[in-house]
């Protein structure tokens, strides 16, 4: 922090000239990128449609009111399906993540190559959105809940094993040593020294992931993979706006409740 001597006494500044210039450079670079990105998007936009957006929003909004309450009779089963997709998908991911996470953690991996392989699985699973997984699986397994469940499972493996292997790497090694000193085998060390330490994380992450998956499974129906998204896209395509608002309301409630449950459970564990 430089002090500049002026005739009125020393003046305090937060940054040196060089620091200020570096910052200015980064700001300019950022602004240029932003302006360029904006120009590319604006070139591909039909501004006539954008101008009419407020009018259209008001129009759709008025058509959505009031929500079609009676449509709820049809929605119970899709909601149930949506929650099942999320829960079963999370379970699949949890089971598969255990070996992957133990392979990926530096302190438990059997071989560096196994670690690289596990990290590759983690990254691939995380990079591909569950909707794309669903798109592929609907092709193979046919439309329905099964494709959605497996899609959610495949997408969750990455996020799940990443958090789990980080937890395994951060365990207290003293406990492992203590168990090892009793003459325990490698497997016994894992069961008695590592598992108890990461179990709270495992359950916590599972519940957290479940909450994310409930959100994710509400939209899988857009590509035919079951759940309430199927009704949503159907109602939008037939312009049944009162049904759409009812579905949105139900999705909102489902998401809020699942978030609440997950927060409660995690609060109880941690």
């Amino acid at each position, binding site marked *: 922090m430089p002090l500049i001597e002026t005739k009125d006494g020393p003046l305090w500044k937060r940054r040196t000239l060089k620091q200020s210039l570096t910052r200015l450079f980064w700001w300019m670079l950022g602004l240029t990128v932003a302006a*360029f990105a904006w120009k590319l998007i604006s070139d591909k936009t039909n501004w006539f449609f954008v101008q009419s957006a407020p009018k259209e929003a008001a129009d759709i909004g008025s058509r959505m009111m009031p929500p079609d309450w009676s449509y709820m009779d049809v929605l119970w089963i899709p909601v149930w399906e949506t929650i099942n997709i999320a829960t*079963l998908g999370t379970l699949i991911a949890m089971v598969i993540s255990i070996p992957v996470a133990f392979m990926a953690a530096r302190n438990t991996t059997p071989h560096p190559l196994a670690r690289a392989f596990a990290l590759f699985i983690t990254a691939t699973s995380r990079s*591909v959105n569950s909707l794309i997984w669903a798109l592929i699986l609907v092709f193979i397994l046919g439309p329905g809940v099964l494709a959605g469940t497996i899609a959610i499972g495949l997408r969750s493996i990455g996020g799940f094993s990443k958090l789990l292997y980080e937890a395994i790497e951060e365990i207290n090694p003293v406990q492992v040593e203590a168990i090892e000193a009793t003459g325990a085998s490698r497997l016994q060390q894992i069961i008695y020294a590592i598992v108890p330490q990461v179990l709270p994380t495992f359950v916590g992450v599972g519940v957290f992931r479940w909450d994310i998956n409930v959100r994710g499974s509400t939209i899988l129906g857009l590509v035919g993979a079951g759940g309430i998204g199927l009704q949503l896209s159907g109602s939008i395509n037939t312009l049944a706006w009162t049904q759409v608002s009812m579905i949105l309301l139900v999705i909102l409630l489902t998401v809020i409740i699942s978030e609440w449950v997950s927060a409660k459970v995690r609060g109880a564990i941690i």
Partner: protein
Amino acid sequence: MSDTNSQTPSYSDYWKRPPFIKRAWLRWLLIVGFAIYLAVALGTMDVDWQRAWEGLPRGQRFIQAFFPPNFADNRGVVFDGIMESIWMAISATIFGIILSIPIGLGAARNLAPSWVYFLCRGIIASSRSFPEIIMAIFAVKLFGFGPFAGFVALSIGTIGFFAKLLAEDIEVMNASQAEAVKVTGSSWFQWINYAIQPQVMPRMIGLSMYRLDINFRESAVIGIVGGGGIGATLNTSFSRYEFDTTAAILIIIIAIVMVLEYTSGYLRKWVQ
């Protein structure tokens, strides 16, 4: 453990791991409840096993059609789509963060008066209410097909994410630094800029990279509902059975996400 010790005066040579949930009734309630749920869920799951079984050999052929990935044939379209996704993600991240800063400041309990607090928390809650893709469906309805709709949807998603984390970070900041700057007689803006901004900045830079990563991943699916970007190209390649191109697009997406992830990890280490 203590139970066995109190019952037997000499030390027992038998030891059992303590259960994860200590209250027995709760443990059994959870186990039984979950078992019933699983049975009902699996029982009501309407799966056409025959269709799935028939699909397996088809799936094998389908996976084979992915290889080798074809980067060449549609490279013009794929390149345009990827570029659109990248620029969409960048501009939505920048725009979303610019909007998030005032909202995040307003949603911090220790900065804002209560009516601003509730207003800003309301904005955050409503922008987090729906998945980005549902936002995108409506943005496409309102603004027409193309990247602008995706940009709007991703910006809204960014606000919910960034403003919430910014507000939470400000709420747990070190209050004495803020006080120290305040007693110098600083104005409100000076106070924000010299006492609060330096405390939250490192984490925010990391988070903005992370959000860019999320936005890019989301932009890959927003195209499925017409919001522009690589998702549209991906969906087209699917419907045209050009699976080798699909594979190429997926590989490119995975590669870009990995690059973004490493950059953000590196950047976070560097700023902290």
